[in-house]
């Protein structure tokens, strides 16, 4: 009797190694499935149970997941790009050109990083519009909306700091103009501009500061907030909240209007 692929998987699941890693055991019961989510460090942020209709494409268009997907692509390609890029004035531009024309697959990785970055900014906005028009920002999920707004800002700052790194004319003048906008801040403008650039003009210090912001500080902040963002979905009751559904709100409004239209009781 020929063994099916499933048989091989079942044998694997019975091995001691497998069972030492996935300790919840294997099975198709609701308990087993719940434990598989709950006892996994990556999956435990998610709800152990979800409504089937919230998993359908039409409910969310998967915009949040797609945004996270582009973020993962950006982290992987970004780390690979860091292996050839030196954040110094004499080398930065040459390294970018080397990545494009000398390093094997360098052009592919750089373009992937660039297009994923554009896609992420687009998807973050699309995700927020979807959440807004679905009314999913309403209680009980209003705090997750706030975290989302901060994540939007981090995404835009990542996009902005990454813009300087190729150190070409476009990058230089874009960052000159962008950092000069900070000068418009009352009283503190000059100080913020000076701290941001590490000097009075876009130069070696500015390049290094933007590099550290782009590769360490902002991605770390994004990872932490994304974790909180996912965890809050579960804590706030999943992707579906009856109270914030547009239909529920409309019904509540209609009832309220009827109440208001009633003549005062004598």
């Amino acid at each position, binding site marked *: 009797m020929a063994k099916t692929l499933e048989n091989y998987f079942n044998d694997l699941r019975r091995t001691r190694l497998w069972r030492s890693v996935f300790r919840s055991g294997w099975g198709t019961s609701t308990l087993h499935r719940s434990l598989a989510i709950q006892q996994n460090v990556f999956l435990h942020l998610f709800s152990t149970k979800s409504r089937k209709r919230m998993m359908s494409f039409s409910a969310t268009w998967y915009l949040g997941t797609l945004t996270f997907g582009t973020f993962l692509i950006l982290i992987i390609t970004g780390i690979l790009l860091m292996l050839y890029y030196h954040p110094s004035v004499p080398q930065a531009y040459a390294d970018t050109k080397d990545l494009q024309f000398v390093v094997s697959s360098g052009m592919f990785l750089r373009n992937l990083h660039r297009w994923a970055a554009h896609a992420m900014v687009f998807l973050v906005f699309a995700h927020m519009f979807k959440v807004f028009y679905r009314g999913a920002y309403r209680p009980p999920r209003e705090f997750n909306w706030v975290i989302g707004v901060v994540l939007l800002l981090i995404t835009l700052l990542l996009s902005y700091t990454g813009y300087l790194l190729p150190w070409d004319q476009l990058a230089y*003048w874009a960052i*000159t*103009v962008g*950092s*000069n*906008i900070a000068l418009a801040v009352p009283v503190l403008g000059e*100080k913020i501009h*000076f*701290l941001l650039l*590490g*000097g*009075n*003009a876009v*130069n*070696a*210090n500015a390049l290094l500061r933007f590099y550290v912001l782009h590769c360490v500080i902002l991605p770390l902040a994004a990872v932490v907030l994304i974790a909180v963002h996912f965890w809050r979905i579960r804590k706030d009751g999943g992707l579906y909240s009856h109270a914030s559904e547009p239909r529920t709100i409309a019904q509540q409004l209609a009832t309220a209007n009827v109440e208001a239209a009633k003549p005062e009781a004598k």
Partner: protein
Amino acid sequence: MEDKETKSDRSELNRRTFFAKLGLGSLSVAAAGTAVFCYQYLSPNVLYEPSPVINAGKPESFPLDSVTEDVNSGIYIIHSEEGLFALQAICTHLGCLTAWKQELGIIACPCHGSKFFVRSEGEHKPGDKIEGPAPRPLPWKKMWVSEDGDLMVDRSTEIPPMQFVRV
């Protein structure tokens, strides 16, 4: 027992609140210290930036009625009938490098379209804005002739307009 309770009620600061306040106080002092530490660490004390004073060369190299842009140092050396003077070439709007448009006889910024006078025209002084979003005129920079007879410009020092150098 009774005596003890009334005692702690009378004094505003019992042992527990005293230590709580002491702890919060020292934490806020430490937080303020950390903020100052961070600010000081993040603002460089020595900058390896180009010197603000530049040597523009001999005055004879700037013929009468000429506008010369030095793109590397971001200034114009202009020789008008009144004399020589230096204008900042960095736009006062958002810091772009402006350009001298000889065919129009004006300075124009490529980024957001600010335009500036180069010559005195009526009430307008060189550097004044013709149109665009620039909030201020292009500032005049301090200029003098060194002992060697070279034109020197201090880019960090603004001077009131209409102060010409005559050689």
